[in-house]
């Protein structure tokens, strides 16, 4: 298929194959050169972006490794032993006022405590004594109350565990194990 041949436009300034406008002769554009330079500069920009992403990843790796060790936390009394019945749970905050946690009494002499924040999308998990699990109602996530490990639903990481110390009928939170 051949292209229809356009008739030369005689109006001044309207270029065509027959008569190019004067400005094109005065200021010729080398399009091949232009395209080459534009792509070369864009490649440079992308490599600089690549360097930025590399540095960002390095920063996270260094910062994550440096912050890896368990930080000593202040001990805090959270409940009296007699206040928590077997098979029940009690809410408390640790280590900060906004960090809500669950203290669960699994057996007369066995207490466990976990962060209440679901490791999927941070909804509050609930202790259910009847099926014997920790349940996140947002997306039906399940955790094992004895270990905090995920047993079903979207969560893949275990709940942060609050380490406890019991002395003189009082329960103390002593730290957080992620």
């Amino acid at each position, binding site marked *: 298929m051949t292209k229809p041949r356009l008739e030369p436009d005689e109006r001044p300034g309207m270029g065509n194959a027959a008569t190019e406008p004067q400005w094109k002769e005065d200021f010729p554009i080398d399009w091949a*050169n232009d395209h080459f330079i534009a792509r070369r500069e864009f*490649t440079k920009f992308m490599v600089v972006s*690549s360097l930025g992403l*590399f540095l960002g990843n390095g920063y996270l790796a260094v*910062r994550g*490794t440096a912050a890896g060790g368990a930080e000593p936390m202040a001990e805090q009394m959270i409940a009296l032993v007699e206040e928590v019945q077997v098979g029940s749970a009690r809410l408390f905050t640790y280590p900060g006022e906004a960090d809500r946690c669950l203290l669960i009494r699994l057996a007369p002499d066995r207490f466990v405590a976990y962060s209440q924040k679901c490791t999927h999308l941070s909804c509050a998990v609930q202790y259910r004594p009847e099926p014997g699990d920790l349940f996140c109602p947002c997306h039906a996530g399940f955790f094992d109350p004895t270990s905090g490990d995920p047993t079903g639903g979207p969560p893949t990481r275990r709940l942060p565990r609050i380490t406890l110390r019991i002395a003189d009928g009082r329960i103390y939170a002593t730290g957080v194990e992620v």
Partner: protein
Amino acid sequence: MIQPQHRRREQATVVLDTILVIVVVLVGIQLWLLTIGVEAYLGQERNLLWPSFGASALCLLINGYLLRYVLKLSRMVG
């Protein structure tokens, strides 16, 4: 009549386009690796942080090599 230099530029642009596609894909992979790094950092999963950093470093090395080639190509075509 097409100038030889003009033709060389056109050919080099095709090579450059191919390199640019590879670089863009590698940067996309690095972006994905960064999201993995952020998620691992926030989830305190330290076992993923260094592998994602290593993979990102590899992408940067390839990109650096390709950029070096592009600059060399640029000098070659004049």
